[in-house]
């Protein structure tokens, strides 16, 4: 079996991953590209040979094989054609050939073409394939460095007899409030589905370490086969706080690297998360439901450091006005729910009982407190439907936070908790915390280790990322 595969695959150059029709040509290539002395242009036979030649003839040390990929530039390794390639690299190469999922070899052009077609076909059908589309890895094209006609770009958006822009404004849907329903084709799959689908799956892989079928399905996409594997660090870190939908920028292939943070958000968004631009951090949070909650906790608890007035623009105040009424009604409901929730908590986890008790004692205060600072966050859980699982995940760290916070801050927190809890409650199964395997055990330690939990900083770092 293994032999058969070997015969099928073309000879390839270990130094630059290029494939050749014939081993003879491969050897010629290696001599010309990788084993040529840069001083006298003599062609040597192997890397060590080149190194020795340079040392002895020119008295110049050479530490890298010329024109090699950065991880394949070891001059010590003796490779001649296909001889001497480390076993694991051979296997890796073969696997990539076979899987057809490789991203780093030269011959994947046809594949990307195929994907392009797929993309076209799927535009109408929708979500999943298109959601997976962006990760499609670009073929490393070694075109001329000039502006060149790199080919006509995909047909779908080529105006098919589109009316001239200025001529018929009426043809397009009017730019009023609900632009959500697009008339143009290809909008929906692009803007929406790739958000919920792909990132969710990624988050699942990250948080529950037992990645199931879904996870493995998505794997080749979010973690590109080779090269820089910086990715896992991010989700691993963040996944403790909430489920986050971290979309990553796909790498281009083994021979190149995009100099950009791995997460697919703009550099500016990235930067606003930094501590020195801290006041903006709370601002960012408003955009996602999850982060709002975590963050409002932060804002309230450290009420001095993050001036809520600074973050409340008048636009928000308008919004607050809108929501205030709604909110009062909600609060009453929440009180009831809170009771239920507390019982559930107490029954489920002994550790959390303390929190519940504390919450109960704080009850009278909470209508007065939870007005301005929480109104903005409040609006979010109502309008945004979030995955229930994440809602619960969220609550637990909250409970932990509450325990160490001064009483004052408590009201808003519980208020925020309530709707999320409710979402959990409404689900058919009577949800207690233990129901959520994977998340709860992770959270409880926080609640237990009340005093040692370093509130502020950790919360800051837990501020979830977008999407």
């Amino acid at each position: 079996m293994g032999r058969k595969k070997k015969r099928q695959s073309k000879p390839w150059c270990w130094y630059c991953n290029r494939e050749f029709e014939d081993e003879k040509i491969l050897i010629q290539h290696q001599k010309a590209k990788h084993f040529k002395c840069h001083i006298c242009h003599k062609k040597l036979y192997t890397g060590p040979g080149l190194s020795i030649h340079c040392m002895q003839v020119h008295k110049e040390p050479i530490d890298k094989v010329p024109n090699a990929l950065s991880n394949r530039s070891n001059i010590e390794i003796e490779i001649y054609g296909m001889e001497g390639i480390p076993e694991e690299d051979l296997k890796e190469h073969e696997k990539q050939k076979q899987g057809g999922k490789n991203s780093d070899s030269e011959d994947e052009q046809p594949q990307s073409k195929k994907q392009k077609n797929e993309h076209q076909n799927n535009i109408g059908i929708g979500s999943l394939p298109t959601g997976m589309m962006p990760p499609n890895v670009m073929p490393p094209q070694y075109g001329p460095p000039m502006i060149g006609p790199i080919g006509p770009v995909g047909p779908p958006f080529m105006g098919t007899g589109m009316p001239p822009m200025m001529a018929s404004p009426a043809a397009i849907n009017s730019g009023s409030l609900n632009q959500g329903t697009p008339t143009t084709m290809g909008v929906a799959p692009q803007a929406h589905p790739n958000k919920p689908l792909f990132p969710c799956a990624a988050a699942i892989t990250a948080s529950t370490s037992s990645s199931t079928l879904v996870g493995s399905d998505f794997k080749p996409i979010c973690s590109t086969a080779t090269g820089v594997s910086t990715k896992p660090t991010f989700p691993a870190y963040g996944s403790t706080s909430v489920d986050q939908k971290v979309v990553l920028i796909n790498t281009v292939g083994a021979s190149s690297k995009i100099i950009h943070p791995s997460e697919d958000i703009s550099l500016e968004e990235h930067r606003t998360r930094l501590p020195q631009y801290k006041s903006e951090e709370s601002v960012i949070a408003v955009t996602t439901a999850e982060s709002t909650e975590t963050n409002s906790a932060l804002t309230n608890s450290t009420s001095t450091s993050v001036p809520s007035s600074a973050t409340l623009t008048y636009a928000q105040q308008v919004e607050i006005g809108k929501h205030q009424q709604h909110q009062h009604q909600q609060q009453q409901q929440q009180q009831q729910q809170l009771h239920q929730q507390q019982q559930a908590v107490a029954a489920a986890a002994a550790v959390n009982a303390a929190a519940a008790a504390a919450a109960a004692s704080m009850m009278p205060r909470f209508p007065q407190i939870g007005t301005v600072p929480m109104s903005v966050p409040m609006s979010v859980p109502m309008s945004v439907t979030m995955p229930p699982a994440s809602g619960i995940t969220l609550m637990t760290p909250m409970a932990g936070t509450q325990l160490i916070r001064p009483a004052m801050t408590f009201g808003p927190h519980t208020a925020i908790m309530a709707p999320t809890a409710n979402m959990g409650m409404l689900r058919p199964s009577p949800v207690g915390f233990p129901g959520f395997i994977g998340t709860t055990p992770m959270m409880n330690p926080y609640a237990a280790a009340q005093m040692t939990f370093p509130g502020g900083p950790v919360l800051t770092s837990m501020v979830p990322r977008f999407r």
Partner: protein
Amino acid sequence: MFSQGGLGSTTFASSTISATVNPNKDFEVVSPPEDSISALAFSPASIPSNLLVAGSWDNCVRCWEVEQTGKTIPKSMQNVQAPVLDVAWYDDGTKVFIASCDKAGRCWDLASNQVIQVAGHDAPIRTCHWIKAPNYVCLMTGSWDKTLKFWDLRSPTPIMTISLGERCYCADVDYPMAVVGTAARGLIIYQLEGKPQEYKRVDSPLKYQHRCVAIFRDKKKSPVGYALGSVEGRVAIQYLNPQTPKENFTFKCHRSNGAPGGFQDIYAVNDIAFHPVHGTLATVGSDGTFSFWDKDARTKLKPSEPMEQSITRCCFNHNGQIFAYSVSYDWAKGHEYNTIKKNHIFLRSCFDELKPRATS
């Protein structure tokens, strides 16, 4: 105004700067911002002098007057309490709009030096543009709250809100056309005649995150298309209604020239600007270089020497004599590369360099 060679003919003012800081031997703007420069804009043609405004991450907007000699005079500065993400000029050159991270859009009246809030979003405002139509004028703001809002400056509520579906990452306006690039590679064209309306949503010609967009005009000076830059060192030239599909194309830029088959670093295209006279374009990138291009001949007119840090933004003055570009860290390499280096804004006499080459 800026006679040709006006900037270049005088002796270079700041010869003390080492070659690596200013490898292209350009004029340096005095008293640059303390933190990374995030926005850059020259005053419109309606005022005789060249005023340059820069917004930065130190929460400030600064204004300089640029003289013909290349000398810059700091005019004014305002602190807006939050990092600035974009600036735009009012059409008569008396006011500057400021988009910032505290979700507020502001108007800075240069004569009175007063700043008032004129716009608000639920998330940081990424872009701002002044729209001057025959029948209306307004400020367009694009935000990470996934909306585009239009403000008439007198009312605290927008005259119109358009949902983008995703966070706004970049935008450009050239009446009657507006283009917005969003997260998740969204691209929406608006037509502004009568009132702002969505014209069409376009499938992205690029496979990576959108970073900057600039509208270009045809020979008759009406907007016909746009150039879109992504984080993957690539720019797409797109016509709204191409005569043939071949008119649209993409090209690579801002990448390290590795040996063929060698390892290549690919940088983000941070900004694109079209020359107001020649219609050629400039791109600047995280790799610390700017390049001038002729999209019609599909050639590079000029590469630059690399700076020490990324070039974050660029712009031309109204008559295309001066090319301004800002050099700061843009966070592309993450935290560990955030060495505190000085930020710079350089001015280059560029009129001739951006001339399309004579077609033989």
